[in-house]
């Protein structure tokens, strides 16, 4: 039996998804033995021209991590789509936009201004901003075009499967790769390597009284490690987030931030979490409710930390 040809790509992301594959540790060797890696720029020296040279559909499966934030990301996404039989959105960024998609609360001009002009450490007297083309003595230099709005992979090209997580946990990664090697894949469009139920289902903390009397941030309180964090006033995205990660954040006394994305029946993770959270506010008068609502700082950053690009609104006012 020929080993499946596999590609890994890193687009707009932190690189954690590539690390996640290394995290397989000794298992990585087993995995590597079962597959034939044909493209993995994070690890080996591949050029896009190598990829372009491959025949269409010659790669069996491409794992694509990272969101689409510039023309390079988009180009490679399209390229990999053409060259691969199956394309997998790997990790929160490719699946839902991830942290990079929080850029959708602002826009290119503001990002450039902040990065290249306004930060105190920036020394840019001539106020030079990135240009896609620049003429130098040696000829024309180009860099990719930076987009106003970050997109998910499937908003750019057709996607076969999704693997959530920031990054996907190691145990799930090896399971997923095995699914591709050994078969047993669900129908196209499915989310792999995650549970069909929310994180609450696997969370070991005790849930009792669903009443939120206050909202605090993690540094403002000392957590009870046995009790549900929501009941302690810490916004935990667990109820509105797929499980499967093993609730590792909760074990470290940190709330779920929602990286495993929305549940199967849910079209907008943030909207659902907002609804669930505010429904159990322990306040009945408009005034009291307002007070609690005011203590939710940065709703977008809280409810859509990883899924803004995949949300209904996608970004702030265009």
């Amino acid at each position, binding site marked *: 039996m020929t080993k499946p040809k596999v590609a890994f790509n890193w687009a707009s992301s932190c690189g954690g998804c590539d690390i996640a594959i290394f995290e397989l540790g000794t298992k990585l060797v087993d995995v590597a033995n079962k597959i034939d890696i044909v493209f993995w720029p994070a690890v080996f020296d591949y050029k896009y021209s190598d990829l372009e040279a491959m025949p269409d559909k010659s790669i069996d499966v491409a794992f694509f991590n990272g969101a689409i934030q510039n023309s390079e990301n988009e180009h490679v996404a399209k390229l990999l789509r053409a060259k691969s039989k199956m394309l997998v959105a790997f990790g929160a960024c490719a699946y839902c936009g991830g942290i990079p998609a929080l850029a959708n*609360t602002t826009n290119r001009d503001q990002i450039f201004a902040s990065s290249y002009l306004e930060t105190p450490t920036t020394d840019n007297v001539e106020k030079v901003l990135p240009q896609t083309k620049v003429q130098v003595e040696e000829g024309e230099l180009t860099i990719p075009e930076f987009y106003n709005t970050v997109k998910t992979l499937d908003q750019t090209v057709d996607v076969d499967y999704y693997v959530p997580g920031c990054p996907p946990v190691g145990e799930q990664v090896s399971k997923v790769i095995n699914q591709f090697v050994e078969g047993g894949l669900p129908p196209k469009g499915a989310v792999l390597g995650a549970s069909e139920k929310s994180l609450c289902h696997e969370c070991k903390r005790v849930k009792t009284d669903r009443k939120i009397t206050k909202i605090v941030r993690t540094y403002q309180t000392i957590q009870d490690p046995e009790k549900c964090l929501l009941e302690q006033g810490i916004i935990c995205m667990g109820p509105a987030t797929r499980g499967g990660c093993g609730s590792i954040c909760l074990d470290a006394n940190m709330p779920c931030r929602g990286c495993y994305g929305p549940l199967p029946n849910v079209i907008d993770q943030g909207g*659902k979490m*907002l609804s669930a959270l*505010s429904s159990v*506010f322990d*306040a009945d008068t*408009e005034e009291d409710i307002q007070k609690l609502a005011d203590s939710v700082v940065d709703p977008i950053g809280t409810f859509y930390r990883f899924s803004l690009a995949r949300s*209904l609104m996608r970004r702030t006012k265009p």
Partner: protein
Amino acid sequence: MVIDLTERFEPKIVGFLCKWCAYTGADLAGTSRIKYPPNVNAIRVNCSGRVDPTLVLKALSAGADGVLIAGCHPGDCHYTNGNVKTIRRFKVLQKMLDQFGIERERVRLEWVSASEGERYARIVENMTEEIRALGSLNWKAKLEVVA
């Protein structure tokens, strides 16, 4: 007077009306032949407490210029306190919509009893005027332009 349709922007407003109070109130406005702008398209729900914020986000992202949620006055809810839960969600939603850059005039929570046809008409009229002044939201189309 002939109204020139091409000139005036007609806001598209999605209304979620609870069947006990607001929807009946809206019916009463009609039965009383009160004239008001036909810009709110009503979706009947049993209680304003059924209105998942996702539905509001859906409407705004799909092309609505505004969303009206209308239920029974606090204390008058047919289901005791469904509307209180609506207030809870609405207050946080409002805060989030601020962040999204959506003007507060576009998404409103109002109380209309079954006998307040006049009030319903006034609310719709007022809301239509305010959104007309703000202009179209047109989220879906604008998203594509700024990509």
